[in-house]
């Protein structure tokens, strides 16, 4: 494989994230993108990377349990919503590589929770 290949988003999934104080705040389960629609119908949207969703609530997002709650299998719905309250949004421009882990320049208390 080419070591100079462009980075891939899958490298982010599953990595531990630490806050500015070095506390582990969870693993990356989702990457949030800003979808920017083009003005012409022949051109597809642009996707700008905005944030990492950290914590098990991100997994609920990834499985679609929060976007389509009516279709969520009943044992998982309440658990998914509870996990989502614990998940944190880590702004992309605050993220730094730290070996196998990632770190954010923000403190845990500065990180927003996830809007379902």
């Amino acid at each position, binding site marked *: *494989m080419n070591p100079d290949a462009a*980075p891939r988003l899958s490298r982010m999934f599953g990595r531990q994230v630490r806050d500015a104080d070095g506390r582990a705040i969870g693993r990356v389960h989702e990457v949030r*993108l800003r*979808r920017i*629609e083009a003005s012409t119908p*022949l051109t*597809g949207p642009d996707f700008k990377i905005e944030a990492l969703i950290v914590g098990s609530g991100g997994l609920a997002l990834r499985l679609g349990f929060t976007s389509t709650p009516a279709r969520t299998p009943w044992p998982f719905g309440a658990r998914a919503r509870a996990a989502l309250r614990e998940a944190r949004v880590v702004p992309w421009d605050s993220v730094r590589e730290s070996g196998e882990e990632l770190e954010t320049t923000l403190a845990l208390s500065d990180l927003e929770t996830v809007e379902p």
Partner: protein
Amino acid sequence: MNSRSDFVDAGFALLDRQIIDRDERPFAKVDDVEYGTRPDGGDYVTALLCGPGAWGPRVGGRPGRWIVSIWARLHPDVDPEPVRIPMSYVVSVGNAIKLNVPFDEVDGTRTDRLDDWFDVHIINRLPGARHEP
């Protein structure tokens, strides 16, 4: 010029989505997403990646390494890369991802080189393969 924006999640909205080409033919699924930095300083999705070379690393561990290793060994290129679909080929993203080109215009999807490899290394070595019909 951009007209509207909202948020989507990459794992839910892009990964594992079906890709269909200009002629509505199912072509592949999104196995990974490549990104890069633009002059405005932001990181943007630049391409969708497909095939075992992209999927294997996502699987991870020993099974993931096997997938990539087998794919690389069967691939006719010495240093193969996954099928790469630039975002300029993408015309819409919804339940499926639609392209504005036929799939055989996407780099890396031509199978004739793989067919050649099978001919040379496997088919031609079968007893009787060189006989006239």
